[in-house]
């Protein structure tokens, strides 16, 4: 199906203002009499505040307010941005400022002063006496007998979500082979280029507070912030300006309650901007997980039982973690079919910074483990790994266990076929040999990983999207949407959907780039890869409603039955007219002008608030070729082929951009990224971009994206999703390629040169 606006790589709606430096991010803003906020952070990973003396800080000229735990509302809250829903398990365990530090960087006090220098000086003048407690930096220590409690949760375990299908014991007994492996994935940070944690709060005279914040979800940040402050939801107004990347880090409240509390106590606007170090220290990142995977398999590659037991290191506060355990189970359940499946996920408190959302939401963790083991199984069975995957993945017409709903479109076989062809799978694969050919110490290998992901959060979460279309008197259209675009291009794709449905040029749609909870309808934000599918459906329906009204108006003017009229290229036409010699036609501008100023006197609107009709899964197969230098341990990724079923690509360049950028994050997960703590003191070891390595332009290989467009009947113009899926399978594909190159299975990320060298030495000693 060809469309006039959808399916075209049009320039993004916000590209020109960004490339010229004109786009305003929260941290670029200034309000009259604005103060600067700063947070005093605990130097200890686990400590009670015995005494705190702020008197010297308060006396410092230029300091306007100093707040501690004593000044905070005694209301427990949870930062995770979820609407109240069956799958949202919201353990409320934090205050805006604490009197018991649970990680290095926990907020003990906050100040607002006339400038940054004064605010920093004030922090230095606050005297705190701590009683230091043992720091529990990993799940083993936290769950150990007699371990000190971080909160009131037995053994520091605060969530256990068992899922049982069939009987795994019977399944394992029926198997020809049983595989059991333990995998570990580390904590990694989203590293949006705009550091996470920037908000500016301004109180007003009527007791409301307006917060400009770099967020993924204006409406849910509004309700959580209001709750934490003891306000009504309507007393908080959230405005989302341009956002400098998010990737999950802004999926919920970050520092909005602190900024708002400071502003409301002092009666002036307060800007609270975290430094890069604070973004590492005090904002949520990806969960480290220990995963034990057990799989029973017949000689022909049929699975008899699959089992996952995982220990999720949630860090110091619950935030997302107990809810997150649900999707983690879902990713595992849904990848491969088996009559017997069991999942036990344990959410564990530790004294690390709390973990939350990061692109993929548990799926990269699970897929790394499952897909690593899948290759081992294929090798043991003497099967092509592609065949093993094709034999066991769920297809269209079958129930997808993540949602419990029937899959309506599946492009996985095409992903496999096109990706394998592009990477030259059959020619290049070593089949687990210890490195083919190659030049001396450098061994080459290829590998792949498969994944499925969501296009939204249903049925786990209630998933409201709202859109409103106003047709202006000149025929242009305003699209009012709680546009939570953080840079991914959702605003552009939604504008294309509106233009296509309305039948007007793309440039005639003007979307609200800034989201404002006082203006736009309730929307649960930008996460779960949901903007195009869920938001896109709402936009399409609002546009269709406006279009219908336009046609009705035109029918009156043209004296033609409405069902005979169509809109195309900004004009209303009679359906079966010859394009060369139309009997009658009029422009949208003329129709709208007539609506405004003719006999009716109204503007044409279309507005909806709705849940999306489903949650279609997307599929991907990523293939990589690596070269392992057995002298240095360095792994070079030579090429990535990413074949993704996204449904209709509303804007192919935007879709490719999502995949290409995600692969940079997935490669970092595989090879370089790990946010580390001293295991005794709990002190972070690399909260900066020199020691926490994300990949640069010279580190990135050739990336070939292949878009497989298995259109979805319920998606807007057939679209599904792409926001998160690009990194989900990357680490698994790299680990499998490394195995193909050197015959060593790495079950822990990242696969650093040190780990490669040690593994090579260990193997050589054995041989």
């Amino acid at each position: 199906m060809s469309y006039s606006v959808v399916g075209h790589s049009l320039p993004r709606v916000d590209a020109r203002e960004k490339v010229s430096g004109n786009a305003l991010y929260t941290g670029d803003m200034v309000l009259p009499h604005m103060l600067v906020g700063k947070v005093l952070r605990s130097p200890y990973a686990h400590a009670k505040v015995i005494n705190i003396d702020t008197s010297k800080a308060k006396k410092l000229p230029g300091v306007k307010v100093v707040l501690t735990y004593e000044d905070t509302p005694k209301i427990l809250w949870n930062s995770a941005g979820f609407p109240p829903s069956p799958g949202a398990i919201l353990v409320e365990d934090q205050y805006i400022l604490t009197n018991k530090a649970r990680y290095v960087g926990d907020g003990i006090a906050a100040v607002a002063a006339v400038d940054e220098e004064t605010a920093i000086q004030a922090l230095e003048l606050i005297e705190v006496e701590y009683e230091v407690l043992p720091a529990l930096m990993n799940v083993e220590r936290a769950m150990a007998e007699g371990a000190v409690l971080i909160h009131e949760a037995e053994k520091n375990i605060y969530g256990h979500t068992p899922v049982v299908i069939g009987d795994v014991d019977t399944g394992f007994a029926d198997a020809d082979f049983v595989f059991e492996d333990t995998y570990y994935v580390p904590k990694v940070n989203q590293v949006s280029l705009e550091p996470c944690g920037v908000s500016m709060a301004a109180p007003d005279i009527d007791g409301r507070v307006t917060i400009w914040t770099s967020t993924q979800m204006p409406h849910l940040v509004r309700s959580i912030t209001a709750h934490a402050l003891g306000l009504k939801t309507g007393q908080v107004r959230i405005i989302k300006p341009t956002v400098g990347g998010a990737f999950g880090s802004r999926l919920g409240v970050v520092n909005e309650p602190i900024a708002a509390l400071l502003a409301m106590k002092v009666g002036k606007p307060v800007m609270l901007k975290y430094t890069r170090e604070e973004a590492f220290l005090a904002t949520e990142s990806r969960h480290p997980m220990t995963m034990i995977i057990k799989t029973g398999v017949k000689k022909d590659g049929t699975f008899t039982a699959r089992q996952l037991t995982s220990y999720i290191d949630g860090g110091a506060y619950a935030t997302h973690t107990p809810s997150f355990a649900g999707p983690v189970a879902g990713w595992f359940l849904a990848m491969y079919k088996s009559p017997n499946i069991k999942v036990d996920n344990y959410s564990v408190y530790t004294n690390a910074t709390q973990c939350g959302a990061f692109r993929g939401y548990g799926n990269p963790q699970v897929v790394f483990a499952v897909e690593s083991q899948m290759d081992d199984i294929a090798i043991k069975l003497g099967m092509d790994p592609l065949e093993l995957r094709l034999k066991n993945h769920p297809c269209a017409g079958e129930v997808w266990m993540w949602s419990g709903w029937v899959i309506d479109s599946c492009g996985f076989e095409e992903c496999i076929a096109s990706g394998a062809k592009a990477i030259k799978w059959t020619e290049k694969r070593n089949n687990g040999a210890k490195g083919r050919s190659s030049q001396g110490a450098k061994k080459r290998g290829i590998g792949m990983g498969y994944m499925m992901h969501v296009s939204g959060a249903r049925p786990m979460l209630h998933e409201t999207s709202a859109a409103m279309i106003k047709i202006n008197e000149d025929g242009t259209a305003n699209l009012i949407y709680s546009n939570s675009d953080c840079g991914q291009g959702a605003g552009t794709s939604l504008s294309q959907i509106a233009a296509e449905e309305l039948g007007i040029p793309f440039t005639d749609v003007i979307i609200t780039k800034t989201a404002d909870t006082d203006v736009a309808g309730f929307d649960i934000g930008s996460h779960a890869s949901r903007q195009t599918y869920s938001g896109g459906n709402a936009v399409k329906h609002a546009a269709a409603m406006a279009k219908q009204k336009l046609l009705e108006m035109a029918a009156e003017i043209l004296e033609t039955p409405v069902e005979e009229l169509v809109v195309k290229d900004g004009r209303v036409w009679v359906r079966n007219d010859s394009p060369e010699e139309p009997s009658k036609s009029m422009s949208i501008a003329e129709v709208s002008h007539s609506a405004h100023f003719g006999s009716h006197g109204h503007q044409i609107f279309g507005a909806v608030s709705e849940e999306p009709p489903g949650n279609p899964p997307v599929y991907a197969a990523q293939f990589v070729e690596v070269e392992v230098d057995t002298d240095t341990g360095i792994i070079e990724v030579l090429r990535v082929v990413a074949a993704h079923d996204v449904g209709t690509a509303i804007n192919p360049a935007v879709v490719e951009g999502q995949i290409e950028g995600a692969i940079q994050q997935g490669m970092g997960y595989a090879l370089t990224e790990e946010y580390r703590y001293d295991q005794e003191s709990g002190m972070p070891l690399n909260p900066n971009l020199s020691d926490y390595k994300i990949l640069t332009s010279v580190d990135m290989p050739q990336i070939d994206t292949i878009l497989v467009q298995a259109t979805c009947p319920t998606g807007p113009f057939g679209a599904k999703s792409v926001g998160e899926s690009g990194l989900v399978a990357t680490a698994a594909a790299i680990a499998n390629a490394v195995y193909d190159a050197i015959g060593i299975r790495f079950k822990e990320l990242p696969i650093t040169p040190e780990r490669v060298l040690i593994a090579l030495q260990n193997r050589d000693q054995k041989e």
Partner: protein
Amino acid sequence: MPISLQINGETYEVNVPIKKTLLDVLRDDLALTGTKKGCDSGECGACTVLMDGKPVNSCIILAVDAVGKQISTIEGIGGIMELHPIQEALVAHGAIQCGYCTPGIVMSAKALLDSNPHPTESEVREGITGNLCRCTGYVKVVEAIMDVSRR
């Protein structure tokens, strides 16, 4: 201390503390907020400006050390009415996502193409290696700069 800075061809008289960085003066004193702060320690390149034509991290240069130099920022490269060819290429190739690294990349690319108008792809990758981007994987950024270099 009172200093005079040459920025985008104009002279600015500012009174700044001696330890204030060029980045903070640009953003806080002169409202030139197109130059971004991503790390404040010379690691990410979001604050890249040109000093006498060479790309520098303005977060690790004191404003007082910029006296007597010609400083170019993103605001001096192209306005919203007329973008520089590098900017047009980045827009056309879909190379801009969150946009936070973009001004710095434009500056690095300009410095590269001013001194080497027809770089190889690996020279382009070297030229922007100091500019971290978390959105694009650099694919379309490199394509865009190569496209300009071929014109």
